[in-house]
């Protein structure tokens, strides 16, 4: 797997949360090898009590996971959330990755009525809005695997 440092025309709204790779968008996490815990974001440590906290390694989570739970939001989230126009109704889900951590995010580009707990979803980059330089400002999001 190769990490792609820069994707032309795309910038993340906040840094260090996901990476582009030749195998799709991956959530950035960190694993503590001492207490076998994964963190998200990678800089927010959540160790097991009494862990020596010495062997923490940055990792990328798998591109695909299972939908642990979800909701469909019918009201537009107020600022500081920002999108081009009103995106309601939009999906939000908690996705269980094979590593043992579940991560929350938008569910877009998916028929929301067909969502089911346990279904497979993939991580992708969703365009929130365009910045002044014409770049797509993106976040991580999930969609149903076709």
């Amino acid at each position, binding site marked *: 797997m190769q990490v792609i440092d820069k994707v032309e025309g795309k910038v993340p*709204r*906040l840094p260090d*949360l996901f990476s582009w790779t030749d195998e799709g968008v991956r959530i950035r996490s960190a694993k503590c090898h001492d207490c076998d*815990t*994964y*963190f*998200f*974001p990678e*800089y*927010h440590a*959540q*160790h*097991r*009590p009494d862990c020596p906290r010495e062997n923490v390694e940055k990792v990328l989570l798998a591109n695909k996971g299972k939908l*642990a*739970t*979800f*909701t*469909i*939001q*019918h*009201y537009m*989230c*107020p*600022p*500081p*959330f*920002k*999108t081009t126009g009103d995106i309601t109704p*939009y999906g*939000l*889900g*908690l996705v*269980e*990755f094979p590593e*043992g*951590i*579940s*991560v*929350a*995010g*938008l569910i877009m580009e998916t028929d929301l009525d067909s969502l089911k*707990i346990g279904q497979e979803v993939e991580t992708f980059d969703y365009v929130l809005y365009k910045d002044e330089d014409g770049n797509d400002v993106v*976040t*991580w999001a999930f969609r149903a695997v076709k």
Partner: protein
Amino acid sequence: MRDVYIVGTGEHPWGKFNDKNFVEVGEVAVAEALKDAGVRWTEIQAIMSSILIYGGNAGHLSGQYIESMFGETGVPVVNVYNACATGSAAIRMAYNSIAAGETDTVMAVGVDLSPKGFLTAKSDDPRQDRDVLRWRMTGMPNPIYWAMECRKRFEKYGDTPEDLADVKVLLSQFGAKNPNARYKKVYTRDEVLNSKMVCDPLRLYEICAVSDGAAVVILSADPKKIQSANKPVKIAATTMGSAIYGDPTIRISALSAPSKAEAPLLSESYSASKQAYEKSGLGPEDIDVLELPDNSSWHYLQYLETCGFCGEGEAHKMLREGKTQMGGKLVVNPSGGFASFGEAIGAQAIWQVVEACDQLRGRAGERQVPNCKTAMAQTYGLMGNSGTTILTI
């Protein structure tokens, strides 16, 4: 440690008071509590006050502002913030100070004026404040978290939209009879089920509003004050809990959770209530009235299980069989709950205790639970913090 009693309580009615500042709202509750306890202001030996996070410098030093209105006396004033459990922290500090013999009579005061609409991020630094991440990257207001947990219950235990609606119906019936409630309309199941869908499966009437309000308790171990008080209420336990590693709850602000549970859901509330049972020697079976944090209908169902009033997945059965209503084994939120009051972060935990005291002291009017001897107030709490208070008469 010596026994500590609540000798007086006060409450400002809840609502939105745009023409008042927090000291003016707090003043009403403080004055009422002093009068109720028959205690003079100069007899208060310490003040534990809830911080208003949206109140600027004054909000962060709320106790000093309230003290100055009634007259500065030089006593210790401690201001505390623990999200929804802020008031629990104030009561616990008051209790510990008295029980340890440092002071005899202490006031715990909670006042809050909520900003309009959703409560959003309070800083701009994502590396320090995870709240910034969820507001900028995922568009997740608080009810989203509750909806996601609620959906899990639907799938696992078979809770239904009717159960969620019935919670609101029950609470609205109590709220209509509480003069201090903000919302006094009685709802039918159909009205709730026809309210707007906010975040599936939670509808508008199944999610609490944000309110302004104030509540005060005066605690004492002074035999004279206990004797002269009108029905003093004994604090059997007042505890706080934080989250336990491995808690699978997707907690507000967080964007991740462990997939495999190694601790109970809402482990902070589980911990606070477990400590309270151990400390008081009482158990869920002994409780007549429970004030639980119904931020949404999901909370109502979940907290019955989290605090051990029924087994996992059995809360809807208690609800459907009427066991949480007037006449049931356990009467839940006879105050009307947050469904009828709305939440006012810094004040709500103390408010729950005041409402529980009203039941124990036979002051609840048309909502009075007959023969109420033991009551429990349980909070929720952002980022894993919670408080439990068990009271007896």
